[in-house]
């Protein structure tokens, strides 16, 4: 729609030039929607007009996480709202991070893992929610509760590893005593023991693999007779890549380990002994085939 009063050259030149302008945004609408969905999933609240002056930190953090999530080593997003702020600490694909809770307990997060806690009430009630894999070093004190999708874990003061992903749930105790409970079962595990789900019921067992399995904190991933599916999923998370895998991958088992320093090395270590070949395509997409 060109205004009718544009009847001289300079007006036309102005109007035409401005019509060719594009604001220099770098994210597409779809990307922006994905960012927003992530914020909603993390429980973000829109800031009030009144509040926004007192919390400028939020806007900086939100933007940074929005445009450069993959570039950041840590995306720790603090949402201050009302009296009780929810804090979510997130390690994205290809990242590891560590967080210190208000009581001094330390959590190391593996790739694609998150913990959430309430900042104000944390000291009265040590309660966090988590998903993914994390190593906890809990300060002695009142009961510390970790809620996961599969079971709740209660601790007094210990260190232990939690693996709570879609395909597997396991709590491995390193020091102290850990209570793991779901709707049906309650087990208490001690150092050298792990608790896992077997047909939906929680069972504890002597676990020789704890020392090697908690090495992920140093970027080492060590497996003994583990399903290839679990291993490829870990590579996806560590290197932020995606696999197209053969169908029978779930029924094959692998013993060995890889480091998260170099993708090709990791792929070779797993694929060569298993008789697999791989092809790295664009956008971090890797297809794995049987070797004929």
């Amino acid at each position: 729609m060109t205004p009718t009063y544009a009847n001289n050259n300079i007006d036309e030149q102005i109007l035409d030039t401005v019509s060719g302008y594009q604001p220099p945004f770098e994210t597409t609408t779809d990307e922006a929607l994905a960012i927003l969905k992530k914020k909603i999933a993390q429980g973000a609240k829109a800031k009030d007009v009144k509040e926004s002056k007192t919390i400028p930190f939020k806007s900086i953090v939100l933007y940074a996480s929005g445009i450069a999530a993959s570039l950041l080593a840590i995306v720790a997003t603090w949402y201050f709202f009302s009296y009780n702020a929810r804090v979510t600490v997130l390690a994205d694909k290809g990242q590891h991070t560590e967080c210190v809770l208000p009581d001094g307990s330390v959590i190391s997060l593996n790739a694609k893992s998150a913990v959430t806690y309430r900042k104000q009430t944390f000291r009265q009630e040590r309660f966090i929610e988590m998903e993914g894999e994390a190593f906890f070093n809990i300060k002695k004190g009142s009961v510390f509760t970790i809620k996961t999708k599969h079971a709740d874990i209660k601790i007094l003061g210990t260190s232990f590893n939690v693996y709570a992903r879609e395909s597997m749930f396991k709590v491995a105790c390193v020091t102290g005593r850990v209570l793991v409970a779901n709707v049906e079962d309650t087990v208490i595990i001690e150092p050298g023991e792990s608790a896992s789900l077997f047909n939906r019921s929680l069972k504890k067992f002597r676990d020789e693999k704890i020392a090697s399995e908690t090495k992920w904190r140093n970027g080492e991933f060590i497996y003994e007779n583990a399903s290839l599916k679990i291993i490829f999923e870990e590579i996806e998370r560590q290197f932020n890549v995606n696999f197209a895998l053969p169908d029978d991958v779930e029924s094959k088992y692998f013993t060995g380990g890889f480091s998260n320093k170099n993708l090709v090395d990791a792929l070779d270590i797993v694929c060569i002994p298993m008789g697999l070949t791989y092809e790295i395509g664009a956008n971090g997409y890797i297809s794995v085939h049987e070797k004929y």
Partner: protein
Amino acid sequence: MDIQRTGIDEIDFDQIFKQWYGAIRNFVYYKIGDVTKAEDIAQDTFLKLWEKRDTIKTETVKSLLYTIANNLTINVIEHNNVTFKFENKYKPDTKHPSPEYDMEMKEFDQRLQQVLGQLDEKQRTVFLMNRIDEMTYNEIAQSLGLTVKAIEKRMEKALSYLRKNIAVKI
């Protein structure tokens, strides 16, 4: 009988987002000239919409979005004399392109962006919504809760300011 529906679901929300996010983001950018803040405020605008989704009527969602974005922009102090960095897709058609002509066009473009930054924020926002987002006066009036007459006035004032000031050499 047509029953007016209150509240939107996630599918509606996604659709509204896809339809309006670009326009809202641009709108804020025209006001404040800051890409980072504009993106941030646009995100917050839709976050607020999400929170209010149960009470929203689809017919009024457009003006609601502009109202939220406008409110969120109020706290950004720097509205006038902002620096724009528009990408210019406009290629004037000329039968005799020459380096001199290109140079002139480039200068004109730079000068225009500068003067746009000095233009009154309200006039500028309306002007750019019309030129860049190709919104009609009617659509702009509805979005901002103004009359078409007011939009016409702002367009006229904007163009006349740009015309007067573009000639002044830096």
